[in-house]
């Protein structure tokens, strides 16, 4: 999956993130070294409070008060202005949240076209593009629904559609299936793994070990540090934890990587 010839998308060197001052000082991230290649599907696991979400926020440039080095596309983010960081969020990064984070007073179409506003697109162009994106997620008939009229799985698909509408290279997903049942989780994971096949880099935080089988690389974290990383291990040696999830396995063909692992 990883192409070593192109420069890595993300390089972290001794990344630290501190919260609190003095006695209450505490490192949520305590010296992370991580290199992520283009096109990887990374699942980050670990117990609560180990710094998974903090890491994702740092990667997504939502939190730039860090120590250590973070290079995005070969450029250090330390020298980027807040405005440039916002532009990178707008054009290169797509967020998917556990709690969906749709704007409740906007309908589905407006929610999906939200990122395009900050790209400076006209209203018509925005809605056209958002509509097209929704159709590819089979939500074409739900365009004018309000978020509270949708099921959890539908809301998360809208959120993914919104994350993708700007054609970002990197998708950051923070427990995207945390609020969903296993059937809806499976559908969402299928969507993400489809994106992965299209060449997107996906970094996903999850609590559910079952879902790591969709990933090409699994990282576990503990106390702000990387505990295990499957990166250097040969694919065959990974233990698959994928379960059928009570879904008829007609979509099995869509996950060639994991299929290989199973053999």
């Amino acid at each position, binding site marked *: 999956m990883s192409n070593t010839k192109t420069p890595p998308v993300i390089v972290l060197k001794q990344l630290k993130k501190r919260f609190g001052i003095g006695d209450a000082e505490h490192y949520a991230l305590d010296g992370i070294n991580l290199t992520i290649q283009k096109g990887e599907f990374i699942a980050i696991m670990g117990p609560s409070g180990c710094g998974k979400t903090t890491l994702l926020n740092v990667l*997504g440039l*939502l939190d730039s008060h860090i120590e250590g080095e973070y290079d995005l596309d070969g450029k250090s983010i330390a020298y980027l202005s807040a405005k440039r960081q916002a532009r990178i969020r707008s054009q290169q990064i797509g*967020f998917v949240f556990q709690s969906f984070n749709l704007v409740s*007073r906007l309908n589905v179409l407006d929610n999906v076209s939200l*990122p395009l*506003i*900050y790209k400076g697109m006209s209203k018509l162009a925005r809605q056209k593009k958002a509509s097209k994106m929704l159709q590819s997620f089979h939500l074409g008939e739900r365009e004018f629904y309000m978020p509270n009229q949708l099921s959890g799985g539908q809301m998360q698909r809208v959120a993914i559609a*919104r994350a993708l509408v700007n054609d970002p290279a990197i998708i950051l997903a923070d427990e995207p299936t945390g609020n969903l049942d296993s059937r809806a989780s499976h559908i969402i994971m299928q969507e993400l793994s489809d994106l992965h096949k299209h060449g997107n880099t996906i970094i996903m935080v999850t609590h559910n070990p079952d879902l790591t089988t969709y990933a090409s690389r699994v990282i576990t974290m503990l106390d702000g540090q990387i505990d295990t990383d499957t990166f250097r291990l040969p694919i065959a040696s990974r233990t698959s934890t994928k379960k059928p999830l009570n879904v008829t396995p007609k979509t099995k063909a869509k996950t060639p990587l994991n299929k290989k692992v199973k053999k």
Partner: protein
Amino acid sequence: MKILFANHIHIARQSIASSRMRSTLTMLGITIGVASITTILALSAGASKIVIDQVDSLGGNIAVIRPGASNDDTLQGIVQLPIGQQYAASSLNDVDVTSIEKIAHVKAVAPLMILGGSVNGVSEGSARTPILATTPNLEQISGLEVSDGQFLDPDLMGSTAVIGPQLSIDIFGTDQSIGKTVTVKGKPFTVIGILKRTNTPVNYNTIDFDNAVLIDMAEGREFIQGASQIQQINVQSESVEYLGGIITEINKSLLKNHFGQADFTVLSGDEIAQPTSGIFTALAGVSVAIAAISLVVGGVGIMNIMLVSVAERTREIGIRKALGATNGDIISQFLIESVALSIGGGLAGYLLGYALAFVISTFLTFDPVFNLEIAGVALVVSLVIGTLFGLYPALRAARKDPISALRQYD
């Protein structure tokens, strides 16, 4: 950039529309403030306009001399205007009138001596009836017309008076009162003329001719022991082009009469309207101050509601930032929203103000004036209020940390 701006306006419209009741109530403060400003400006412009029109209709070749040094300080004018001039002894006298008459190209001069006192006919007149001692020239200079009888004539035997039509009705019960006797300050006068109704209580002579009694200058002087206390001298030039020269000459000769003291003011053109409408300026000043207070209160209302709105939409701000909104985008979004609120309120206030002005003008003798200045003032005022009071909430919104904003549940 242009599209981004249009987007912000779109977002503002969405969010205002989503809480219509709240937005309307917030606008109300601005509406009331702008409405009162509009009403006052429209009416005081109407009052000034009526006087300017009078001066213009008389040919524009009129200069007016008033006692007291010219006063450019508006604030002082507001404070002093009504009282200072009524009780102070006038600095103008008969000598001044005579010297003005001698100036070349002066066509006519009319002194106005305004007295207070009782005016009685068959029934008692109002104590506020103006008694005006003047010369026959006033008829020509101020374009007065007589509907019945004749104007003042010092050559006539005995004491004669010309009265306004409304006064005639008030004290004689009829407007046909020629030959009747009117008692002015205890002295009987024979009515020799009734003025034509003018319906202009606001004019540059500061006298409501419909209600006045006009007597000869010599009679007036008798009431105050032969002295003369002239409140105003009206000067008419032969034509407009001589007016400038005449004003210079008047200044020169009056300065000589007054031993170099510039205790008088020579006015011409639109300037004449200003002291006359001074009372309106004063009123307008006070009312504008009150309106300004209500605007500040309205602005604080906007700020309040914007702060609530920012707090309510913290999560939305977090989402927008995560999706690529810059701090500037967030500031614009909330600033445009507050400006939209205040301009909406301002527009409503402008319309309401004119509605109010028209209602009030039915009790007055002049109409409110429409002009671009008033619309401009209303627009600028609401723009400034919206920006000023929207800035802090907008900055607060932009400063929100996206991570903690996203963590907030709504």
